[in-house]
């Protein structure tokens, strides 16, 4: 498309005609020193904590430390061209980011600038980055399920809309994969997803975006990226910025899923800023308010009351532990803030149990309230059974002779572990999960060889979808295991087993 020159000139003319030469009044200061993403500014005597300031190169800063003689400013942008003596202008507003439908499907930096080369975010809707979370009377208890599509999680640590469920584990244990699966599973549910990458390699972020795109999940997802090369202030505000974008949908009655990947990097960025600002260090050199840093963020995930539209933000914060050390400072903090945690273990991961979730110490404090009735029926007690199986398994390794009851409990356990394995990026519907778990917990797999369980499950699901579509659709509608449905499932399983011969490779 071509633009004629008079079209452009008309824009300019309109601007000139509207222009009124008012005196520009501003509060200013002078840069004393700058470096590592922070600046000390002399002057700005009327600036308030958290207020935005502007540097001559256009970079935005936030007043972070108010001292007697100077103001500590964190710089959200290029700090390399800021010089000593530069004039800093107070803007009198708080930081805000673009929000609304325009941000969906985009890859943005924490200030809302595009990183995906699709042009600027065209919206006039903005939301302040830091707000106080909604209060008690504006919320209601978590009641609807937020399906992750992962059998092990939906059965044992169910997540509800408005819940905060921590994903914690060592590096390379599949933390991000669980979050990505959960995002992919939101396809068709109207849930908006926000993936906030903090301090990660840009290549890892690009890989996530690629996976989301290939699975058609980018259509309802926003990626907010503050990579490892981004200055610490940007990494620090990234989760708040992402939450602000999600809040737009929540307050309009929508549902959101926010993944913070990961909050330990954000804590490290905050520690860096605080130490450079000469705030006193505490445990592990983190500043005293690092708990508040996470609690005020996660407190913004909520299930709103019906009067406010009933919207919700579900969050999946991720914490990376070092050598399984959950009692370090940041992990204990975030465990105490969230409504439960999914603990991933490297030894399970390498034993081929993926997702490598440790059923014993993973919990969801919201629990059954966030499960469908059908799921509650098949999965009740599964977590405790599995934890008991783990203890029994350790005991059985001593080589003692076992009685028949114990042996059958062990056999059931091995098959359940096998059944809960699930490949990456293949989330399952609730109905499929219920069918699989039904077969496992009711003992219909006890005569299937352990190694054939996964194949059996896959073939069974395929078969029942082909042969009994009415049963599937009925289960989808009712979400409950009535006596009639239970009977039909049992019949279907028997029918399948009669004609199916498990192959052990």
């Amino acid at each position, binding site marked *: 498309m071509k633009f004629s020159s008079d079209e452009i000139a008309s824009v300019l003319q309109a601007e000139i005609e509207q222009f009124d030469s008012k005196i520009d009044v501003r509060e200013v200061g002078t840069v004393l020193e700058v470096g590592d993403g922070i600046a000390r500014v002399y002057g700005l005597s009327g600036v308030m904590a958290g207020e935005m300031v502007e540097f001559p190169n256009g970079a935005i800063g936030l007043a972070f430390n108010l001292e007697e003689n100077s103001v500590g400013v964190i710089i959200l942008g290029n700090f390399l061209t800021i010089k*000593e003596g530069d004039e800093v202008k107070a803007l009198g507003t708080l930081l805000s980011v673009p929000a609304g439908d325009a941000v969906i499907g985009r890859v943005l930096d924490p200030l809302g600038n595009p990183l995906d080369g699709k042009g600027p975010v065209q919206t006039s809707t903005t939301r302040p980055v830091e707000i106080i979370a909604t209060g008690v009377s504006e919320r209601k208890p978590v009641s609807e399920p937020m399906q992750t599509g992962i059998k092990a999680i939906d059965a044992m640590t169910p997540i509800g809309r408005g819940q905060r469920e921590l994903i914690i584990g060592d590096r390379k244990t599949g933390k991000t994969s669980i979050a990505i699966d959960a995002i992919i599973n939101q396809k068709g549910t109207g849930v908006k997803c926000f993936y906030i990458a903090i301090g990660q390699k840009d290549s890892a972020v690009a890989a996530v975006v690629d996976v989301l795109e290939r699975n058609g999940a980018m259509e309802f997802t926003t990626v907010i990226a503050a990579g490892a090369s981004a200055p610490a202030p940007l990494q620090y505000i990234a989760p708040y910025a992402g939450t602000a974008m999600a809040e737009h949908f929540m307050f309009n009655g929508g549902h959101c899923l926010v993944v913070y990947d990961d909050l330990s990097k954000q804590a490290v960025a905050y520690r860096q800023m605080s130490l450079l600002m000469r705030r006193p260090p505490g445990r592990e050199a983190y500043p005293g308010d690092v708990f508040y840093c996470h609690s005020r963020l996660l407190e913004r995930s909520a299930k709103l009351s019906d009067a406010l539209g009933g919207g919700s933000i579900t969050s999946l914060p991720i914490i990376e532990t070092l050598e399984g050390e959950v009692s370090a400072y940041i992990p204990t903090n975030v465990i105490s803030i969230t409504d439960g945690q999914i603990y991933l273990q490297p030894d399970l991961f390498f034993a081929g149990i993926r997702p490598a979730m440790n059923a014993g110490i993973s919990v969801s404090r919201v629990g059954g309230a966030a499960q469908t009735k059908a799921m509650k029926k098949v999965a009740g007690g599964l977590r405790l059974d599995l934890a008991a199986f783990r203890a029994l398994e350790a005991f059985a390794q001593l080589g003692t002779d076992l009685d028949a009851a114990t042996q059958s409990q062990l056999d059931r356990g091995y098959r359940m572990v096998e059944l809960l394995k699930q490949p990456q990026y293949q989330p399952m519907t609730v109905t499929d999960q219920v069918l699989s778990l039904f077969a496992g917990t009711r003992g219909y797999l006890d005569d299937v060889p352990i190694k054939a369980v996964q194949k059996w499950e896959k073939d069974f699901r395929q078969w029942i979808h082909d042969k009994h579509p009415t049963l599937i659709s009925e289960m989808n509608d009712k979400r409950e295991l009535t006596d009639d449905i239970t009977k039909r499932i049992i019949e279907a399983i028997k029918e399948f087993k009669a004609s199916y011969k498990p192959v052990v490779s």
Partner: protein
Amino acid sequence: MTEAIKHDTVLDPGAEQVGKTYARALIGAALSAGVADDVLRQLNTLVDGYLASSEKLTAAFASPRIDQNEKNRVIDRLFGSEFHPVLVKFLKVMAKRDRLGFVGAVRTAAVSINDEMQGRLVAEVRTAVPMDEATRAAVVSRLSSTMNKQVRLVETIDPDLIGGMVVRVGDTVFDSSVANQIDKMSRRARDGFSRELLKRFESFAGSNS
């Protein structure tokens, strides 16, 4: 391209703090002796006259290697007869505490404290061309009436402003310069362009579907 440095010296908040403390003490002492104006004028002569013209004296004042007695002797010999005893004693106190190097900072702070006590304001005015008397009087009277204080002007010439003036009182800047207005206009025009481009693009995309 090198930009002219807009502030006269490297800002040192530590020195400023020291200066403020000593200045408050000096003004207090001078007021109780009833000689505040004299002392302030003499302090100005000391800094602008003696210290500015003699590098050696400045260095000697700041040097920790010259001991206190020596400094006291110098102060007595040079200023004993000329300066008011309050100021001479003050300089000796500073010498005793090894703070003689901060006399400049004390002067800056003392002037501003004095201005504040007298209900005077300092307004820095930057203009593109030197102001004539009438403009100066108009600026002073306008500022005094809005601020409700006596206004003292510190003028600088900055051709980059093109026209108009920039008045700075404390940390607040009143900017009516032509350069700033052009800058703002260009920003708004830029925003207008992108808005207009998007509008065109949307109508273009809309007509297709």
